[in-house]
């Protein structure tokens, strides 16, 4: 539902970094624990990118699997259900080491060829 807002945020971040060059790819790392629907995000991105330097750019979404780590017994695991207590020691001191990303990793832009004026 909030993919329109996220798409606008992704667009604005890409525009901030593209230096007015045409953007061909926007690569975003999306943690599986973020409630972002990829198809919906792609749909909205295409709409909000119209008439900007990102028009027609391909949105590449790289899904990141969740990883949890217990700070008490140091167990690390990939949860298959949303349970955040350590399955070994029952500790609540569990941190998310991956899976909550919503990060623009890189963009690809078209560079204009500049004529080489150096004497050969």
């Amino acid at each position, binding site marked *: 539902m909030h993919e329109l807002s996220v798409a606008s945020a992704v667009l*604005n971040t890409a525009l901030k*970094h593209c230096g007015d060059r045409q953007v061909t790819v926007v690569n975003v790392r999306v943690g599986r624990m973020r409630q972002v629907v990829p198809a919906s995000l792609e749909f909205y991105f295409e709409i909000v990118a119209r008439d900007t330097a990102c028009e027609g750019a391909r949105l590449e979404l790289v899904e990141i699997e969740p990883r949890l780590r217990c700070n008490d017994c140091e167990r690390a695991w990939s949860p298959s259900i*949303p*349970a955040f207590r350590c399955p070994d020691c029952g500790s609540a001191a569990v941190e998310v080491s991956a899976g909550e990303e919503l990060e623009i990793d890189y963009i*690809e832009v078209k560079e204009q060829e500049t004529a080489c004026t150096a004497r050969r």
Partner: protein
Amino acid sequence: MHRTKVRVVEDALDANNTIARANRDDFDRYGVTVLNLMSAPGAGKTTLLERAIGEPLERIRVGVLEGDVQGSIDADRLATLHIPVTQLNTGNGFGGECHLDANMVRSALDQIPLTELDMLIVENVGNLVCPAEFRIGEDARAMVCSLTEGEDKPLKYPLMFRACELVVVNKLDLLPHLDVDLDKLLYNIDAVNPGVRTIECSAKTGEGVDALRAWLAELAHRRLQAVA
């Protein structure tokens, strides 16, 4: 024409978080503690607020920022409590945003009498998904989960349940009439957000609402202690 890769490595919501920090600075300047209150539609946020702040909290002046897609039904209800209530509608553009973000709250700041408040409760748009993604400059986030929603909701919407430091379990008066398993619900809440504070109450009968009032007072005093 060739292509160049530009490294970005930036959170997509950085811009929102920057505005949220600006909001927070303004709230700090006026000494206002801000609570972002979230829930599914119909969980009972407004009724709970009527119960919890209908009687003034001791030495804490409370105001409400009421977020709705459309209309002022909730704001009108709360205005009868004789507290400052500001309506914020998200219904522009694509038929209405499903959440409040930092910029929307920022746009309403000049309508909120911050000098007259110690605490601002932001009643977010009813939605268990989107509001959890957007910081607005709050000190704390809390949610209301009503028994009628069933015991499985924490497992289906873990992001929301994990975002909050308090989960208010509402509509306790309906427990005898429902098939819902309260212990299972509390177990599921603890599974997705281990150790999170929970308060069981009924906004209808008032049962348990004192615990929420005490929590709100504690939240306001937390700021005073931090300043001292």
